[in-house]
């Protein structure tokens, strides 16, 4: 790998992060943050910007010939770029609110990977009556805004963003795009990768603006609707209220956010086609059909199982378990966890075992390829399922030809193998990190398993001690680092993040 070439692009990326942090200053000013907070925020934006510019000067191409980027460099830029971006992005948390490094890093990684697991907590009360750390409501608004912006930047991919807006990067080829985009089939919408990136970001921007519009229509303040839209469209899950969306206790907001969470879990290429007037594409897509029907089934199954008993919202309010109420909370929760957003309106950790287990299984699957959501993805589940069935039928007819078809097209064996091994590595990573969490924190089995599930899938809340009413603040720093690794592995779809551990990757 050409390390200089990779560092050159990463410095640009870090500069971009710095500029984005500075972009939160006006918000901080409008929301009447104290001057010290604003100065600290400005400082924490200037630092990455300067580091980035320094790196750019040091590593810029020496001669007129620019760097040559090949597959290796592509993976290097994406995998190391995400780590660098998280390091740069955690500076505001340390500077403005005095987070420890590991807390700030966890929060930023959780933001960029659109996980939404938080360490910002005011529910833990120490013996002397003081609260541990600061709650969300005590933090400066500028910082809260930055926290949501990290979601938005990470949703469609920071590197793809820089491809779209930095034409002078001149990083040709598909490597970067493929290394960061999700799903099996990476359709190209335009002959140039930069134009494809622009189209996807355009759709993404449009969805965000639409959601802000609808939320404000229902009376949500601009700041809140921006933060929540960033969290929704990126399928992130950071809310500007400690009680998440349930804190608003407004059915209209629940419905709008549910719809946008669902849309963000769909393949963005289909949205683009629909905008072109080919809305039928939604129905023709096998993956989307699977995603849609599973969502509908899950909503009713969960609603049925929680009907009748009292529902406790994430804000701690008790509501009656009528049909409509259970439908409202179950649909929000199902879509939120299935699309790997992780917003909460109800404390689903208090629900019976069946809906809890069901929700955890949905977290494993996640949304569709080509969306901002995480998890294994519906397309991979479908392919694995079809492959499984074909193997069963091969037991009876060993010589039969079993083509694996997806969206009416035969999949190459190499793709099927990649999907299967993805499935395997995903489960292995899940098991290993569960063991690590169990060893490191000595917690109960539900926490130790659902924590990694939620982080690997980019969901946010798990069950038990990492449930919707709790945070990850109580964990020790090694456990947090394990979960950070999970989040990055999950967001970069395992392979991209794992290649950097191959010794050959680093050799020239």
């Amino acid at each position, binding site marked *: 790998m050409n390390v200089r070439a990779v560092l050159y692009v990463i410095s640009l990326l870090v500069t971009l992060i710095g500029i984005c942090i500075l972009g939160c200053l006006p918000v901080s000013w409008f929301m009447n943050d104290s001057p010290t907070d604003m100065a600290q925020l400005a400082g924490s934006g200037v630092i990455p910007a300067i580091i980035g510019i320094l790196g750019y000067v040091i590593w810029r191409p020496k001669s007129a*010939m620019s760097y040559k980027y090949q597959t290796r460099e592509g993976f290097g830029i994406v995998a190391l770029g995400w780590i660098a971006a998280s390091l740069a992005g955690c500076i505001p948390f340390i500077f403005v609110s005095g987070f420890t490094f590991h807390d700030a890093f966890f929060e930023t990684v959780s933001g960029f990977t659109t996980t939404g697991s938080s360490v910002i907590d005011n529910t833990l009360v120490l013996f002397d009556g003081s609260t541990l750390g600061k709650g969300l409501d005590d933090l400066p608004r500028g910082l809260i805004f930055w926290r949501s912006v990290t979601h938005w930047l990470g949703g469609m991919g920071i590197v793809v963003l820089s491809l779209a807006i930095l034409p002078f990067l001149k990083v*040709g*080829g598909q*490597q970067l795009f493929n290394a960061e985009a999700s799903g099996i089939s990476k359709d*190209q919408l*335009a002959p*140039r*990768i*930069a*134009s494809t990136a622009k189209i996807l970001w355009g759709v993404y921007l449009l969805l965000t603006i639409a959601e802000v519009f609808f939320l404000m229509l229902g009376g949500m303040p601009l700041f809140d609707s921006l933060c929540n839209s960033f969290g929704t469209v990126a399928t992130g899950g950071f809310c500007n209220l400690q009680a998440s969306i349930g804190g608003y206790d407004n059915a209209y907001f629940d419905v709008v956010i549910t719809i946008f969470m669902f849309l963000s879990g769909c393949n963005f290429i289909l949205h683009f086609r629909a905008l072109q007037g080919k809305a039928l594409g939604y129905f023709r897509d096998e993956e989307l059909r699977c995603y849609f029907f599973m969502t509908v089934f899950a909503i009713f199954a969960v609603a049925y199982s929680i009907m009748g008993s009292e529902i406790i919202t994430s804000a701690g309010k008790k509501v009656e378990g009528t049909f409509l109420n259970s439908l409202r909370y179950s649909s929000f929760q199902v879509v939120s966890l299935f699309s790997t957003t992780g917003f909460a309106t109800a404390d689903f950790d208090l629900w019976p075992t069946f809906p809890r287990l069901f929700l955890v299984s949905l977290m494993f699957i996640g949304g569709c390829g080509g969306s901002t959501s995480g998890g294994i993805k519906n397309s991979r589940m479908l392919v694995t399922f079809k492959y499984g069935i074909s193997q069963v039928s091969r037991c009876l007819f060993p010589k039969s030809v079993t083509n694996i078809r997806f969206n009416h097209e035969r999949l190459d064996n190499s793709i099927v193998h990649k999907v299967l091994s993805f499935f395997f590595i995903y489960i292995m990573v899940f098991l290993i990190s569960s063991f690590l969490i169990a060893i490191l924190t000595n917690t109960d089995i539900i926490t130790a398993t659902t924590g990694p599930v939620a982080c690997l899938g980019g969901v946010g809340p798990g069950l038990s001690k990492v449930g919707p009413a709790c945070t990850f603040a109580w964990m020790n720093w090694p456990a947090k680092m394990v979960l950070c690794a999970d989040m990055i592995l999950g967001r970069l779809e395992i392979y991209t993040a794992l290649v950097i551990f191959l010794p050959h990757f680093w050799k020239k």
Partner: protein
Amino acid sequence: MKIIIVGAGEIGKHLAYVLSHDKHDVVVIDKSGELLEHIKEHLDVMTIEGNGSNIDCLIKAGAKSSDILIAVSGNESTNVVSCQIASHLGVKNTICRLDSKDFFSEKENFLPETLKIKNIIIPLHEAVRKILNVLDNKIVTERILFTNPNAIMTAFEVVPSSPIAGARIRDLSNIEILSHIRFAAILRDRKHIIPNGDTIIVPGDRIYAAGNKDKVQDVVDWNSTDNCRIRKVLIAGASRIGATLAKELYKMKYEVRVIEKDPKKAADFLDEIKAGVMVINGDPTDKDTLAESGADTIDAFISVMDDDEDNILCGIMAKEVGAKKVIVTTSKAEYAGIIPAISIIDCGFSKSIIAVNTVLRVLNLVSESMRVDAILSRANAFILEFTVHPESHVCGKRISEIKFPLSAVLAMVFRKGEVLSASGGLILQSEDVVVTITERDKISKIEPLFCRRSIFGL
């Protein structure tokens, strides 16, 4: 511009490389997913696996909104059909690669226009022309032609006995014969050197001399040794190129011999060419065969077999046996960069680079963007013709006053059909055509100089 390329072979791959680096939107169609995979790994283009003569496939590639379709697959019929479909779908310009003109007949009034094909290119003919162009003199390695028929750029090898060997270019300025031409580029050890006053010419250099045809020829003759003329030619391989070449050479009264391995092919070839050409059936990579065909007394040995490696090997062997000048053709574009390193081989021509150049030349006529002529055998250098726009920066200026990038050379100027040497004192006028040699990344810097002045600089 949006360009569709049908065929991801050597030509298609190289075209995609050049065009995508020139900031065009490129879509490549091919049946072979493997070739496409390879292209996609290295280039920022869109690829579609499918048949280029399939209408659905072309629609999928966006033919309805494309400007140009270039059909360069190995199959002639596929090329013709995809051009027809493309023009039906509204592609304004189509370029179709063929191996011969056999598809069409003027007598029957069946012409490319009948099929709505805009341009036809026959790279094979170009390759034959290229080879014929260097067959008059041993030291000539390449001749590049321009839109002006009087102009030429000739590459010749400096032999130790040459009067300019060992001289500094500045000291040559008072020689009358050199005053009308310009040394536009020097290739030394495969590297492209930009000649300036201090450059010292060493034997083995390949000098690209640009200027008026006759004047350049005078310089070439001046540098030739006495026994540079070529009479006897031996062609290895009765491939399509070999056959065309043999016919042309025979017409030009050369003494031609052809070696062909396959007896049936050899017999067919003899039937086709009738008489006057001696055809030898044998393996050209076999020393005895070479000796039998008289390679030791031959002036020029041309290897045009289908297999690149065979061509290179038997070129080397022929030189060992005693051939004076060895010319080799290859298909793989990569080999074009290696052949200059084999000093035994005098000239190497890459069929795919020739084809790419042909396509680029047609594209320039199509887009009128004053672009490109030829790629200087892969030395990353381009030869471009620009027309001086009346409102441009350089119009009315002396050449010595123009701020040119260091790696760019102004080779010559065409004014109303006349070829002028680009000396520092010449004042550029509007509608002059200037020929420059430059590296790829400097093109964007040079182009605005000659074009209309605009705020955005284009």
